[in-house]
């Protein structure tokens, strides 16, 4: 059985249930890289240019860690994710990811490229070419594809219920996300004055607990419930973004829509934008959120920048200070 390695990074957080079901349906065995650790991150950094965003460095580290564990490495090329009339796409680095991997990483097993470009190509066509590479007959590819969409839909509805990716994966995949579950308890009932703090940032940053220094559970321990943007339905995002000039980066549009939604919600006590150092789109959208979306009556908004050098203490201080600020301003009211 061919062993396909899936790096636990970037679009993994969004699409792994679909990919896994699809690959297994085609007779492959799926191996996921271990959760990020120091060595893995350092490997990634070493093989990457300095000024590339930390999530891509993480991806490189995860891909390299699978070197001797898989016969092929699954690398997605996520180009466009929104059907519709306007021109939208993801980030250049998600579009060029396989090219970067090919250019920078030597000695990897062969790459299995999977294209998601819904504006120009049906997913079915991408699945077909994946099946052809794996030598799988079209009929079993078709079944695999159908069940992968089903699992993905269930995954997304778990996310909408507020589960974090890891927990949602454990629910919809027979053997979970393939790792020890480091799921944050999100029960803040023990706290006498619980807060709700919304996290606005790419899932591959917020939910990589090594790089985010356990951000969601850290908030939790401080008596603040982390409200995730994956629980904001698309329809709400659409409605919110319609209030601003157009953004063509689909994922940044989500950040904008979620921020706008949370900043207008009375039950949200604060919004934390989580951005990656050297992230191109974030540098623009964070500015747009702070300047176009925030209103005088909005709850406090802060930005947490994460990179490979941010220490645990740095994040802890920032988070504690933010929670403190919210508590104090609440007491005044």
């Amino acid at each position: 059985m061919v062993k396909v390695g899936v790096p636990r990074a970037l679009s993994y957080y969004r699409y792994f249930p679909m990919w896994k079901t699809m690959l297994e349906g085609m007779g492959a065995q799926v191996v996921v890289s271990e959760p990020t650790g120091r060595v893995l991150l350092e490997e990634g950094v070493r093989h990457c240019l300095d000024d590339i965003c930390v999530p891509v460095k993480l991806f490189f580290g995860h891909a390299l860690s699978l070197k001797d564990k898989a016969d092929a490495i699954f690398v997605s090329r996520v180009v466009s994710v929104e059907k519709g009339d306007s021109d939208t796409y993801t980030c250049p680095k998600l579009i060029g990811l396989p090219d970067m991997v090919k250019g920078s990483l030597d000695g990897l097993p062969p790459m299995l490229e999977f294209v998601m470009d819904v504006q120009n190509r049906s997913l079915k066509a991408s699945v077909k070419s994946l099946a052809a590479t794996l030598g799988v007959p079209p009929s079993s590819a078709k079944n695999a594809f159908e069940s992968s969409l089903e699992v993905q839909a269930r995954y997304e509805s778990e996310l909408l219920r507020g589960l974090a990716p890891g927990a949602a994966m454990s629910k919809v995949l027979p053997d979970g996300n393939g790792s020890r579950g480091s799921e944050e308890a999100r029960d803040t009932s023990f706290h006498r004055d619980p807060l709700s703090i919304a996290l606005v940032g790419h899932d591959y940053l917020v939910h990589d607990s090594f790089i985010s220094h356990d951000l969601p559970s850290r908030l939790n321990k401080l008596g603040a419930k982390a409200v995730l943007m994956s629980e904001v339905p698309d329809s709400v995002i659409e409605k919110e973004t319609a209030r601003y000039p157009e953004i063509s980066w689909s994922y940044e549009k989500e950040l904008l829509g979620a921020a706008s939604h949370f900043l207008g919600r009375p039950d949200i006590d604060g919004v934390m934008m989580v951005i990656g150092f050297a992230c191109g789109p974030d540098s623009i959208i964070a500015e747009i959120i702070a300047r176009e979306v925030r209103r005088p009556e909005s709850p406090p908004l802060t930005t947490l920048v994460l990179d490979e050098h941010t220490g645990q203490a740095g994040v802890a201080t920032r988070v504690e200070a933010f929670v403190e600020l919210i508590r104090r301003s609440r007491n005044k009211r």
Partner: protein
Amino acid sequence: MRVSFPHMGNSYIPLSALLSNLGAEVVLPPRPTSRTIDLGALHAPEFVCLPFKVNLGDNLRALEMGADTLAMVSGMWACRFGYYGRVQHQILRDAGFTFDSILLGRDDLGSVFRKFRNTADGNLAAAWLRAFRVFRRKAAAVDAIEREARAKRPLERDRGATSNALEAGLSQVHRARDTREVDTSLAEGLEALRSVETDERDEPPLQVTVLGEIFAVLEPSLNFDIERTLGESGVATHPVLSVYRWLMRPLKMDLGITLDELRARRATRPYIAYVLGGEEHQTISGTINAARKGHDGVIHLYPFTCMPENICRTVLPRIEEEYGIPVLNICLDEHASPTGVSTRLEAFIDLMRQRRKSAGGRSTSLERSPG
């Protein structure tokens, strides 16, 4: 209307002509300097790419000089550049400036057209037509003069003579009021450049292709005037991008440019399979072409954290190897030091000389063994 726009190389010459022929008064900030960059960086988000900061600095200086309208292209590009104007203008408003915005995008050409209703002389459409003709003529004139200077500089006898003639020629073109005057100033400018005295050399100058992110290639304040530095060290430079191309490309009026873009995309596909929204196709195909033409090297310029060029940067080593052409990558940010860059340039020039010598005179890449 006192209108201003950010600098990019000599684009101010055709752009000023366009706006003043529409009856606007053009407020031209001084060419960007380190003060401009510092000023911009002070107000810009920390992680945004360098051209944003320079543009913002230009805008701030223009506002100091009394501009009441700021113009910027917007929304036409996939990259961060498409949002520059929107975010910059908001930053400036938040900083307390009041001004009118002209954001030139594909969607709203009509409103830009009508902005000049009250300033243009006579019929608005006729004014646009006249303005556009001068604009285009000037863009072509600037291009021709720059080319001539580029060819001349590495051979000049007196260091700086070419650059002086270039400056004089460009300012003549800038001052020209109509297409006839543009033509005369172009002819005079070219003539002055041709009469710059040259030295006999034992061997032809090193030939270097310059490519990368467009501001980094075209704006001397970003790249420490690399074209001049190289030229005065006896190296002939061939940028793959130009102001003329940048201005004419979206208009799709120059068939040569449109075809070249298509060819570049095609050549890039094996290395970068999808469009990234920057100049990646010109970077990749430019490097391949440099090798095919037998150039001695390629200089790849890009701003710190530039997304499309960073991807190119990871792909270029493969092309370097496959085609046997050395590439020097220079990453620019507001902290880049001029001495650091010039040391690297000198080392690169040495390397190219060495290669040429060991290849036994001028060779083409095809004769060289890869690697």
